[in-house]
Each structure stands twice: as structure tokens, then as C-alpha cells.
């Protein structure tokens, strides 16, 4: 990419109007349809949404790991500032350039720690592979660094554990290994795609704690993909809420939880059980009615309108509402957000 690409100094990643479409036999699935957001240095951005909202596809697009065919990045830019300080558009890099960025500048951890490690190799081999791939170290040095990484992620007796096979470890330990692997090359961005979904709650808390600790030590940014709002409250600085392939709301984490603007965000927040309210109200938990729309046949206008309490005929189902700035650094994609805010206030 020519040097013409400019990005704010403090920004690490900026996604501009990203469009990722899947060309299937049944038609074109617009999994991501014009998403924009940015991640600052050292910041944690959470991307929240139901299954099928396009959050995982967004993450995979940044890594350029969309299965092609049928998927393809059809538009937009993914600007990323590498360790060398140069800004590149990841959407247009060649495969070879992209390989140098994967693992080295941007690392990723996945949802399923049970299957994300190769059963054939020892844990040490797999961490060392990542190190040797990018840092040109000898096997011995790489193994020492691997032991150090295992120590860092809180695995006892790291030297001995290097010789273990994945099946000898529990889910939580494997996720720690995955984190060690991801961080072994000091990436500036860590993409975590629902890293705690497959773990039980106590282990979840440990892993999140670990990630926060490591973020402070290493100073990387985290792009956190999740559908778990509890995790968002715990981890994120800022939040992007996605629905049907589009960002519907973006805000800092505290204002978003206090004063959600988009009806979908409000629905999401209300569907989380809350201990403090449950005692007083003893009401049924509020759920968002209906299901995520079929991505092949999205509703006209605002994609959320068939499930929305504030739906007004002739207004919401005509045009896709624009992403509007609210003036206080937040953005929302709803034509009625002012009214909704007033009703609440």
C-alpha cells in the first residue's frame, strides 16, 4: 500500500466501511455490511452481538482468514499500524505480506481451546513453532521462551509442561496455552473470539483476569468478540454492538450500560439477569422477541424493526438508518434514538 494512508497517531486499527459478502448457491449473504470502528493503542474494544450478527466474520476479516470462496472482502479498508510504525491496508495486502502480520503483529485466540491445539505435537512444540516462524530463533531458544510464556500465563512447572500433549491438559489450561502461543511474539493487537465461552464460570473469571494482567504488562490492544455482556462490563473500554452485519451502536462501556440508546442494545441489557433488580421486581426476564433474521432475506429499512418495541410503520422499514453521532462521542443507528432517550429520562 502506498504511504498515502493516514491514520490518527494513537490509533492501532481502523476499520472503515468493511463489507464482507459470502457468495453461496442460495444468494449473496452480506455477513458484514459496512462496519466501521477503531481500536486505540492499549485499549480493549468489545464487539457484541447475537450469533450471526457478523462479529466473528469481522474478526476473521481483520486476520484475512475468511474462507475464500465463498467469502470475500468486497469493500472497505482495514488500516493497521504494524510494529514498524507503518500503516497498511490489510484488505489489500498480498497473502505473503499478510502471513508476516498474522501471529507477529496481530494474534488471535479462539473459542474452543479443546480443539485449537494440534493433538499430535507437544504444547512446547506448538508454542515454539510460533516463535520460530516469526523471530528466526533456534529451537532451543524458542523452547526457553515457550517455557517463559507458560510461566507468564500461570501454568505451574512450565519446563515440565512443555513436554505435555494437549490431551493431558484441562480446558482452562489449554486456553492458557493458546494465550501463551498468541502472545509469544508480542503482538500489538490480540483478537479474542469468544475466548471464554467454552469454559466454566470460575475458569472464565481466571482467564479474563489473566488477559487483563497481561494487557497491562505487555501493553497490547485487545479486540474482544463476545455475546456475553458480563464479560464486556469486566473487560472493555469501548463497545460496538452489531446486528445483522451492521454496527448499531458504539459507546464507552459505562455510558452504554447506563444509558443504552439503540432498542437492540436495551433489549440485550434487559435480557441479562440482574441480582439487584430481581429481588425487588420478581418479574419474568425480558427477552427480545423473535430471532436473528435470515441473512439472505434481511428486513427492509432497519434490520431490527420486526423485533423492535419502538417500531413505527413507514419510518423504520423504509431506509437503513444512518449511524448518527449523538454529540457525546457515541454513535447510534436508529431514527428514533432521541425520543427513546427522552422517554427514559
Amino acid at each position, binding site marked *: 500500500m502506498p504511504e498515502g494512508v493516514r491514520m490518527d497517531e494513537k490509533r492501532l486499527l481502523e476499520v472503515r466501511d468493511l463489507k464482507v459478502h459470502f457468495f453461496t448457491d442460495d444468494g449473496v449473504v452480506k455477513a458484514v455490511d459496512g462496519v466501521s470502528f477503531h481500536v486505540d493503542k492499549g485499549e480493549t474494544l468489545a464487539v457484541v452481538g447475537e450469533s450471526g450478527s457478523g462479529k466473528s466474520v469481522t474478526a476473521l476479516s481483520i486476520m484475512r482468514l475468511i474462507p475464500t470462496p465463498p467469502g470475500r472482502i468486497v469493500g472497505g479498508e482495514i488500516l493497521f499500524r504494524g510494529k514498524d510504525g507503518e500503516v497498511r491496508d490489510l484488505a489489500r495486502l498480498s497473502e505473503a505480506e499478510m502471513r508476516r*502480520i498474522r501471529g507477529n503483529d496481530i494474534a488471535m485466540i479462539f473459542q474452543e481451546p479443546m480443539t485449537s491445539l494440534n493433538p499430535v505435537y507437544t504444547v512446547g512444540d506448538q508454542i515454539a513453532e510460533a516463535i520460530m516462524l516469526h523471530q528466526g530463533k533456534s529451537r532451543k531458544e524458542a523452547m526457553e521462551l515457550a517455557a517463559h510464556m507458560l510461566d507468564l500465563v500461570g501454568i505451574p*512447572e512450565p519446563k515440565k509442561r512443555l513436554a505435555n500433549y494437549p490431551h493431558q491438559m484441562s480446558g482452562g489450561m489449554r486456553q492458557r496455552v493458546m494465550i501463551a*502461543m498468541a502472545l509469544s511474539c508480542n503482538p500489538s493487537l490480540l483478537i479474542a473470539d469468544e475466548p471464554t465461552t467454552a469454559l466454566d464460570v470460575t475458569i472464565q473469571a481466571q482467564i479474563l483476569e489473566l488477559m487483563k494482567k497481561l494487557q497491562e504488562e505487555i501493553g497490547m490492544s485487545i479486540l474482544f468478540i463476545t455475546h456475553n455482556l458480563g464479560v464486556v462490563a469486566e473487560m472493555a473500554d469501548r463497545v460496538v454492538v452489531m446486528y445483522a452485519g451492521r454496527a448499531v451502536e458504539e459507546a464507552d462501556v459505562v455510558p452504554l450500560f447506563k444509558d443504552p440508546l439503540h432498542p437492540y442494545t436495551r433489549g440485550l441489557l434487559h435480557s441479562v439477569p440482574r441480582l439487584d433488580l430481581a429481588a425487588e421486581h420478581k418479574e419474568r426476564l425480558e427477552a427480545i422477541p423473535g430471532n436473528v433474521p435470515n441473512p439472505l432475506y434481511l428486513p427492509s429499512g432497519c434490520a431490527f424493526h420486526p423485533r423492535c418495541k419502538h417500531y413505527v410503520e413507514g419510518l423504520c422499514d423504509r431506509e437503513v438508518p444512518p449511524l448518527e453521532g449523538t454529540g457525546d462521542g457515541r454513535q447510534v443507528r436508529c431514527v428514533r434514538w432521541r425520543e427513546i432517550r427522552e422517554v427514559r429520562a
Partner: protein
Amino acid sequence: MRASAAKTPQSQSLTQVALRQFRKHPLAVWGLRILLVLYTFALFAGFFTPYDPNYYELYPPKGHHPPTRIHFVDPETGKLSRPFVYATKRSIDPVSLQPRYEEDPSQGKFYLRFFVRTPDQPYTILRVFRSDLRLFGVDPPGRIFLMGTDNFGRDLYSRLVYGGQVSLTIGILSALVSFVLGLVLGGIAGYFSGRPFALSLPLRAWRGRGWLLGPLSWAIWGGLALGALYLAWTYYSLTGLGVLQLLAAGVALWFAFFLLKTLPFRPLLLDPDNLIMRLVEIIAAIPTLFLLISLRAVFPTNIDPLFTFYLVVGLLGFIGWGGLARVVRGIVLSVREMDYVQAARALGASDARIIARHVLPATASYIIVSLSLTIPGFILGESGLSFLGLGVTEPYTSWGLLLQAAQQGGFASFVDRPWVLWPGFFIFVSIMAWNFVGDGLRDAFDPRRRR
């Protein structure tokens, strides 16, 4: 409690588990022992044989000599003695005109001696180490033929051991050839299935390296189309107009038209999976023996015998890779969807690295088993080819070639000189041994058959 918590579990790799299982399979262990003996004999053939495999005497002739009798009892004294043999006297049977051999004690006893040196018949091991030390032998003019001789009077036992070199290694080499082919092609087919390669560049992709590759791809395809048109034209001008000529012209024109319509706008896509699997089907559809004979017939018969050896290896390997490629493709198709493959890609591993390090190792246990079970097939294949005179040629020998020599003379050959059937016995033993080993390996790698 505390002590056990501090203990890290012992790591045991799949190989270690499989080895322990293998040892519990008595037939397989015996098969392996037999194979070890056979391959040791083949490797140190010179040491284990008393004569050079091509050594024979013109006078006195020793054709179709029966196995030499080894005496342990001295007939003169009736006491036990060091093993010895007598020299033999040849006569011709007046009725059948076949040679007969009788022991001739008048020439004295020839004691069996161990670790003898035969300076007139040196040998090499692996063509590198020269030696003339042999495990056993008798002083000339005495002769020891453990399994008799062939029609020239060459020691059948020596020839058998040397023939084993060819038969046993051809099995392994052909299996390796077909496995390299099957693994690479099956791996590519499976891994890139659904991700077609572009074989040309449309106009809009002509930038950067496309300025070179684009016109090049067009030139190649254009050349192919022109070639097809030219062929159709020559066909017509040589034979005149007919249905076939029209058909050829039609195909060529259609190809050219298709290219004109496609090249500027879309890349020509080729799914390697499609290509390779269709190739496998084509090879599978051709009768094997017919293919072998015709391929072998392409090469002249007076070529270097050693080259024939490699030719047979190549041919057997070439027709054998299809089945393996198919299975490997299937395994790869499922493994490439695994999370750890995605994870490796997210770490920046290249396609080649992922195939070699993460995808193909998943096929290892299948391959080890399959390898040991196909080797006997290749040994049989070589024997069959040599039996038909298409395989190894003199002065090299193989078990198949020895069997072919055995059947010369018709049924009488088996009745009058049954020792010529020894090579058949060794083919049988080696194939059984390989099959047992394969069975054992299959059970060892199969968790459902653990005991």
C-alpha cells in the same frame, strides 16, 4: 493429596502407545522377526551364500543338480562326524536324457567349513564394502548346493538370496514411490478442494506481476487452441471430410470460441481436487496388467538391467498411488476444517507448512498401516511381472524370475526337480510376514482394538 497434585502426568506419544500394543500381537511380532531375518540375508547376501549367484562351471557341468546331502555320520566308521559332503559324479539317464548325479566317495570327504574366504569370488555389500568372507562353504572341487542348481548349474540358494534383494526391496521402493505420489497429490487435492487455482488472468488483473503472467497465460491457452485447430485441419486434409473430421473441427472450434469468450473477462479456474481425483479414476479404470505390459513395452528390451529394476519400481508405484491418494484426500478434507489448522493459519503459517506439519501427520497412522499392507502386493506384482518376462532381467535375478525358470520344462520340471519351487516358498513366507506385521500395526494404531 499434595504429593499427587504436584506430579505432572507422564507424556506418552502415540508411537509409544502403538509400539506397546504391537508387542502384544504374537503373529505380528513373529512376522517382524521373519522379515528381519529375510532382510538381513538380503543385505548381507554375499556373506550368507557360498557362491556368487552367477558362478557356474562348464566342466564338469552341474545343471539341475539336486540339493547336496550333508552327512553327519561317517559311513565308514558309523560314528558321528563333523558335517561333510561328497563330490558328485554326473551321468545321463538313457531314457529321460536328464542328468543324474551320484555321490562319489572316492574323491574323499569335503568338510563343511565356516567363515571361509573365496578370493576367486569376491562380493560387495551395498556396492561399497568389498569382501570375500563367506559364512560357510566347502573346499573345491567339492560343492555344496543347499537347494540344488538351475539349468546352468548355478547355486539356487545363492541365487535365491540375491533374488531376495530385488524382490524385497522392490516391494518397499514401489510402495514408497506410490506413497509419496499418493500423499502429495491426495494432500493437495484435499487441502485445496473448493479453492480452485486460476490458470489465466483476465484483463483487469493485469497489474504488477500480472503484466508478465497475464499475457503468458493467454499465450499458452491461445497456443493450445491454435494447436487443436491445426490438428483438426491436418486430420481433414489427410483423410478428407467425414463425420469424425467434422467432430474434431467442432471440438477445436468450440475450444477456441470458449477461450475467446472467457479469457478477457474471467480467470480459467481449475480445482486441483477435481483434476487429481479424475486422474485417479482414469488410472483405476485401466486394467492394471494391460497398462503395465504396454508401459513396459514402450521401453526397449535391451536396456541396462539395473535400469529395468528402477523402471519396474516406477511402474508399480505409478499404478498404485490412486487408492492411497483417495483416502488421504478424505482425511485431509476433514482435518483441514479442524480448529488447530485455523489456529496455525492465524499464527502466520503458510499453506505448505500447514499441509506438512498439521494436516499430513494426521494421516500418519493410516499410512503406516497401509504401507505395510501394500508392500506384499508390490512384491507379488514384481514376481508376476518377472514371471511374464517384463520385470528384472538376467544377470539380476528375483524370485519371480527364478519361478519363471522353474516352470521351463513343464510339469516334469516339478516332478523331477522339486527344489526349483523354493522361490515360491519364499514369496509366500515374506508376504505372510508382511501381512501379519500390517495386521499388528493396524490393531496397534486402532484404539478400539486396544487390549
